[in-house]
């Protein structure tokens, strides 16, 4: 079985800090895979390493069978990977429309995905001409995901889409991810601190502890493990 994305023995970090240690994982076409772990475990570093910044110091990353380990960031993204990064990073002084168009335009695409993105996040339609810096946190998160979708990626990387958002908004966003996967077959690699939500949504999951993958399994399987419940779900009572 050829995975869409495969990481093998990847080590990476910033400066003297080694954030990822011998990480191997794979994501198949059409899957939602989640990566859970505590703050500082290396989850965001893993997503960024996939995108070439920081560069993997050891190991191999392949996308659709082709080696992408040594490619510059923009070349990796042009192969069909898109990321909604940590902190959302919308362009604050551009309008919602311009932010969305950037997602397609950077790859020389006309932006045909726009209607589908606005259908997925109707809030963005209401805020279409507004500057992104004036949006609420939830709206910015929708914009960041929408912008990533504009290039019709084959793999969507999501970094903590629930961070700092009200439960109702989180529910909306997770619903949208589920719909994307169910109706369009979007392949998603989701990084989350909210393990409960993430494992309920995902087909499979990995647990990252201090830069190493310590557990892997199906979403439901991991949810049922007592050590996961103790460490990430606030104990059995939760």
């Amino acid at each position: 079985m050829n995975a869409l994305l495969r990481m093998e023995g990847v080590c990476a970090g910033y400066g003297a800090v080694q954030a990822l240690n011998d990480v191997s994982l794979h994501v198949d076409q059409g899957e939602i895979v989640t990566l859970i772990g505590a703050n500082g475990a290396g989850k965001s570093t893993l997503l960024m390493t996939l995108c070439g910044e920081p560069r993997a110091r050891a190991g191999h990353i392949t996308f659709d069978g082709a080696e992408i380990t040594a490619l510059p960031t923009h070349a990796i993204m042009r192969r069909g990977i898109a990321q909604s990064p940590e902190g959302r990073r919308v362009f604050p002084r551009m309008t919602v429309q311009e932010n969305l168009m950037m997602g397609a335009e950077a790859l020389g695409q006309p932006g045909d995905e726009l209607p589908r993105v606005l259908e997925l996040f109707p809030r963005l339609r209401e805020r279409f001409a507004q500057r992104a810096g004036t949006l609420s946190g939830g709206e910015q998160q929708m914009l960041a995901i929408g912008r990533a979708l504009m290039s019709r990626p084959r793999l969507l990387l999501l970094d903590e889409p629930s961070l700092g958002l009200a439960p109702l908004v989180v529910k909306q966003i997770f619903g949208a991810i589920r719909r994307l996967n169910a109706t369009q077959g979007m392949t998603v690699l989701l990084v989350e601190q909210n393990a409960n939500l993430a494992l309920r949504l995902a087909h499979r999951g990995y647990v990252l502890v201090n830069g190493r993958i310590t557990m892997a399994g199906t979403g439901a399987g991991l949810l049922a493990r007592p050590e996961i419940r103790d460490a990430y779900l606030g104990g059995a009572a939760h």
Partner: protein
Amino acid sequence: MAYALQQLINGVSLGMIYGLIAVGYTMVYGIIGMINFAHGDVFMVGAFVSLITVLLLGIGGGAAGPGALLLVLLAAMAVTALYGWTVERVAYRPLRGSFRLAPLISAIGMSILLQNYVQVAQGARVKPTGTLVPGGVTLMQSEGFNVQFSYVQMLICVVTLGVLAGFTLLVTRTPLGRAMRACEQDRKMAALLGIDTDRIISLTFVIGAALAAVAGCMYLLRYGVIDFYIGFLAGVKAFTAAVLGGIGSLPGAVLGGLLIGLIETFWSAYFSAQYKDVAAFSILILTLVFMPTGLLGRQEVEKV
């Protein structure tokens, strides 16, 4: 009254030249957060390329036709753009990711290098071209004072406004302009969207240098004499203009340029021509002390 009107015309046409150079400072600052101290010398190179083209065309000394002037302008923009590209490639790109002062020191080195290169290659003496665009119109006469709007001043205004209008369209309406703004607001995110940020930075230098070349060409037409050292003073004044307008702000750079041109001209006319540079640089100090974000600049927001 007539005297003041004359100063206004002189100040605006001078200010446009500063504004064109200031745009290059502010663009580069916006996108990579450094002051390109070699930019004034890129302007000087633009003036020299204009001069060389004038000589090659054999139009020095007399009035030149519009076709020949356009050729001079285009040649200056093309060759100077190549200089701008090379400066970034050789002196700044290898230092990206290095400590903050490294490209700044490299820029000062580039500035000295360009000055000395032109001095050695072209000689140290001032180069006169004569008046290429003679004449003008008398707008009004009062008490024996003629208010002149010379053709070369009109040319400066028309060309500058045209070039800046084209530049504004480029930045606000084209994919390249949006990519430049994306890099300016969040370079890492721009790369994550598939933008080749190194290419955008190169193009920023190319466009900045082309605008400086327009300024260099206009300077040559206006004053008819240049030397290898003109880039220093013009560069520092344009930098002052960029700071006054709010570094990073494109309309601010043009506004700052006009203000510096006007302040310098009016100061020379009513106080003392010897102290005109002091006046311009006092503005720099006052701005930095009392209004560091400039007239149209943004308050720096701490990123979370």
